[in-house]
Every structure is written in structure tokens, then in C-alpha cells.
């Protein structure tokens, strides 16, 4: 199968260089916003793998993000773990949950799949509320500042520093972006796209559709959990709100706006939504109304999302 081509690779590097430069150019407030956007864009990239590339409309991805968030947060808060092992615990929680949920939910399809994933996610959400002794429910936990220190090759970096926080988020974003770009152009990525197009066709060619979908869910859960775990250690807060249905709907919105099955769509969608809300809310309390109008306009003029429509109309090489 075709590898990622030169133009696409350069585009990805250019995006990363611009994001790197923004760390030194953006005012303090916007640097904080973009840090958050980068992490949530990682979450959206994870969601995009299942929804955009595999055609599985999950309404339960909040549980994978929250699994990473709690996996990292609880081990730091209650067990006193340092950042790297806690991050690893978050990843492990996410991938294990994704495999278990995927194994059960992938026996369904279409609307049933949406309902089953939503149901599992709600169970996870209610669990975080039930065990308030450990999670403090909606109020959440604030992680101690000294524990949020990243050690790399003997050097220590305080993750409460805005610059370090931005660069750490960017590093995770860069790794996931490049990995995703290669993954979706690999044989596995092509297989997922073909499964999205027609499962039965793939089955009759000898593909194990279930195993491929499960692998997609597992990788998607891992990426979503990485975003959640990084969110916990970078922003020092772990709360049930991140496991609520809102965080299952948001990545769907981001991916649809940015462009499903495009590598840069999740970033574009997340950034746009954040700034529309941010800008609109400074003028009116009815900012969701403005967001709604923007969404309608985008659906009218960019029916495949921004990157998806640009690819369809002008830049067919866009990944």
C-alpha cells in the first residue's frame, strides 16, 4: 500500500512548526487555550480513527478519555506515583477498557452500536460519581503541584509552567499526528477505510472485519486515553465532568467540522469550536446560538467538514 507522500509529510511538518512557533508568539491567555486545544485535538484524532476511518459512530468515547484521566490522576493523587508511570497507567486503563467495550459493543452495528457505547460510557460516568470517596465526583481532585514534574533524561520540568505545558502538549500532539498519518496510509488504515465502505465485501475477500474493528477501537481508546492522561498531569484536575456525555458528543462535533477521515481535521475542528465559543461568549451569553449558526453555515458550505471539503474540491492529495 502507498506510503504517505512528500507533500502530505511536508504539510504535517509545517503545521507542527507553526504550532511550535506559536509557543513564543501567543499571549499568555491564548497559549493556555491552544494547549487545551492540542490535547483535545489528540482526543479528536483518536475518535477520528473509529468514526472517520472505520465508520463506527461511537457515543461513548468520553469513557476512554476519562479512563486515561483517572488512570493517571488517581495513581498520582492516591498512590503518589510520578508522571511517567501515572501516564502509563492512564494508557493501560484506556486500552484495556477499549478492548473490553469493543469486544462487546462490536457485536452490534449502527444505532445499536451507538446506544451500547453510550450505555457503557454512562456506566463509567456513574461509577466515577458512585466512588466519590476516591474521585470526589463532580467536584473532582486537584493534583498536588510537586507531583506534576516531568523527568526527561535526568532533567526535571515543572508542568505547571505554561511554556513547558504547551510544549508537552505539542509533543504528544506531534507524536499522535505523525503516527496517525502513517497509520491511515498503511495497509491497516486502508483496510479500515474499505471496511467503512462495505463490510461484507471485505469479509468475502477474507478479512476478519471484527478483529480489524477491534484493533481500531483499541488504538482509538489508547489515543483518547493518552489525551486524558496528559490532561490530568498538565492541568492538574480530574473530575467526573470529563466522563459525561458532553465529552462523547464534542469529539464527534470536532471531527465532523474539521473533516472526518482527514489527519488535520480534528485539530481544525477543535480549534474552530474553541475560538467560536471563546469569541462569541465575550459578546453575548447566547454564544451557543452563534455556534449553531456557524455550524449551519459550515454544513452548507463544507458538507464534508473543512479539511474534507478542501480535499474533495481543491487538494485531492490532502491526507
Amino acid at each position: 500500500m502507498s506510503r504517505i507522500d512528500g507533500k502530505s509529510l511536508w504539510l504535517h511538518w509545517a503545521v507542527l512548526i507553526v504550532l511550535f512557533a506559536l509557543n513564543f508568539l501567543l499571549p499568555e491567555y491564548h497559549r493556555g487555550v491552544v494547549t487545551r486545544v492540542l490535547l483535545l485535538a489528540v482526543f479528536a484524532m483518536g475518535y477520528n480513527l473509529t468514526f472517520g476511518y472505520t465508520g463506527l459512530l461511537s457515543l461513548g468515547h468520553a469513557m476512554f478519555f476519562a479512563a486515561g484521566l483517572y488512570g493517571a490522576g488517581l495513581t498520582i493523587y492516591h498512590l503518589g506515583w510520578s508522571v511517567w508511570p501515572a501516564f502509563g497507567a492512564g494508557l493501560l486503563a484506556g486500552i484495556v477498557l477499549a478492548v473490553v467495550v469493543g469486544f462487546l459493543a462490536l457485536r452490534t452495528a449502527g444505532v445499536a452500536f451507538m446506544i451500547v457505547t453510550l450505555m457503557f460510557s454512562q456506566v463509567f460516568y456513574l461509577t466515577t460519581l458512585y466512588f466519590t470517596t476516591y474521585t470526589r465526583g463532580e467536584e473532582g481532585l486537584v493534583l498536588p503541584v510537586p507531583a506534576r514534574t516531568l523527568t526527561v533524561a535526568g532533567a526535571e520540568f515543572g508542568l505547571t509552567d505554561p511554556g513547558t505545558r504547551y510544549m508537552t502538549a505539542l509533543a504528544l500532539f506531534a507524536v499522535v499526528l505523525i503516527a496517525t498519518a502513517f497509520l491511515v496510509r498503511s495497509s491497516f488504515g486502508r483496510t479500515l477505510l474499505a471496511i467503512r465502505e462495505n463490510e461484507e465485501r471485505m469479509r468475502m475477500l477474507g478479512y476478519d472485519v471484527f478483529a480489524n474493528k477491534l484493533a481500531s477501537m483499541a488504538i482509538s481508546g489508547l489515543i483518547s486515553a493518552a489525551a486524558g492522561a496528559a490532561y490530568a498531569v498538565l492541568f492538574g484536575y480530574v473530575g467526573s465532568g470529563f466522563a459525561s456525555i458532553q465529552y462523547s458528543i464534542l469529539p464527534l462535533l470536532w471531527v465532523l467540522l474539521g473533516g472526518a477521515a482527514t489527519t488535520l481535521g480534528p485539530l481544525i475542528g477543535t480549534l474552530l469550536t474553541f475560538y467560536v465559543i471563546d469569541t462569541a461568549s465575550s459578546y453575548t451569553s447566547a454564544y451557543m446560538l452563534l455556534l449553531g449558526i456557524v455550524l449551519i453555515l459550515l454544513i452548507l458550505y463544507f458538507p464534508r467538514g473543512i479539511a474534507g471539503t478542501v480535499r474533495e474540491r481543491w487538494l485531492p492529495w490532502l491526507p
Partner: protein
Amino acid sequence: MTAALTLRQVDCFYGDVQVLHAFSFDLREGEVHCLLGRNGAGKTTTLKTIMGLVPAHAGSIMKGETDLTRLAAHAIPRTGIAYVPQGRQLFTDLTVAENLEIGLMARGKGSATRERVLEFLPALKDRLRQRSGTLSGGEQQMLAIARALCLEPDVLLLDEPTEGLMPSMIARIQDSVAALRNQGVSTVLVEQRVNAVLSVADRVSFMENGRNRETVDVERLRGDPALVRRYVGVG
């Protein structure tokens, strides 16, 4: 002559409706065996049941020592059976080359297989970068056969490969089926066109209401047009 594929007493249902009734037939090694019958006789269902896309409720489908009814649908092509469904079922947004690669990847085949397939169907060589949805009907059928051949099958199931094609393309498809027979590939061919059957098939099974009414050599069919009239209503 040994059998490449044997169906015995196969029952199959769509919901509560029984489509195949104790259906039996043998595909001999290296033959082209045609299933002929009116619309709704169960020809396509037979192919889908062999491929596990529609479950068999009773009976056996043996390929060598393997009972295909006990395998998952995705495991059946790995036994050496390839299916070219009605309507071609290509990935129309993908190029010709990418469609072939999906076939090659399915069984871990490489460039040597691809070259062999393209030598067999050279018309596709100039179209490799073209989106398969933009090919003509005949070229799409060629590609569907080529994709199936990427699995290097010894049994090929073809569902109405000449449907909607112009005469010159029909002849090319028939030549390809005959050439595959010469390479030792056993083929089950579902056809509506009696002329196409007469020119390429070795034996014919007449299907009616999900049953195999009669299996005859094609020579007998040539000498007895009444047979076709009885089961298909034309001829």
C-alpha cells in the same frame, strides 16, 4: 474425477422463508459448472451460502476435508475460494491498483501475484491509477475478477459476470473463464444467458425453487433445447 466442492442437503433461510431446500451439487476439479434458473431460483443464495455470507441451516459444504459451514465467513476465502459477486462490488473510490492491493493483502500475496494477474488481464495495466468507479462496466468486471484472482483461488464463484455488458466484452469474459479452466481453476458460474453457458460451461445444474432439479453435461443441453425451456422458460 474428484470434487473441488461438494454441497450436500443444504438448507438456507432468509428469516422464515426457506430459499434452499436440501440443495446438493458437486463441482469437479477444473470444470466450469453453471447454475441456471429463473430469477429467485436461489442461484445467488447458493454462492452466498458457500461463502458463509448467508448461513446454512442444515447440510454440509465440503472443500476437501473442510466443512465450510463450520467456518466464519472471513475464513472461507483462505481455503482457496474467491467470489465475484453480482454488480462487481468494487471499492469505487479507490483506484484500480488499490482495489487489487486489497485483494493481495487479504491473503498476504505480493507483487509476483499482482504481475501474474495483470498478465492474465492486461487491459487493466493501463488503468492502474484510475478510480475504479470511472471504469466501463466491462473493465469493472475485469477488475472484480482480477481482485478475486489476487487471492490465488482454486475455486472461483462468478455471479452473472456478463450482465449488462456489450457483446465484445462478454466474449472477453468468457475467454477469461475458459483460460482459468485451462489453469486448473474450478468455476461455479451463475448465468442467465443460455448462449454464454453453452460456450463456456462443462456441466449445468438447473435450479428451481431452491432445489437442484437436474445436472447435465453441456453437450446434452446443446442437443435438447427443451431442457432450457422447461427450467428457464427461454431457448
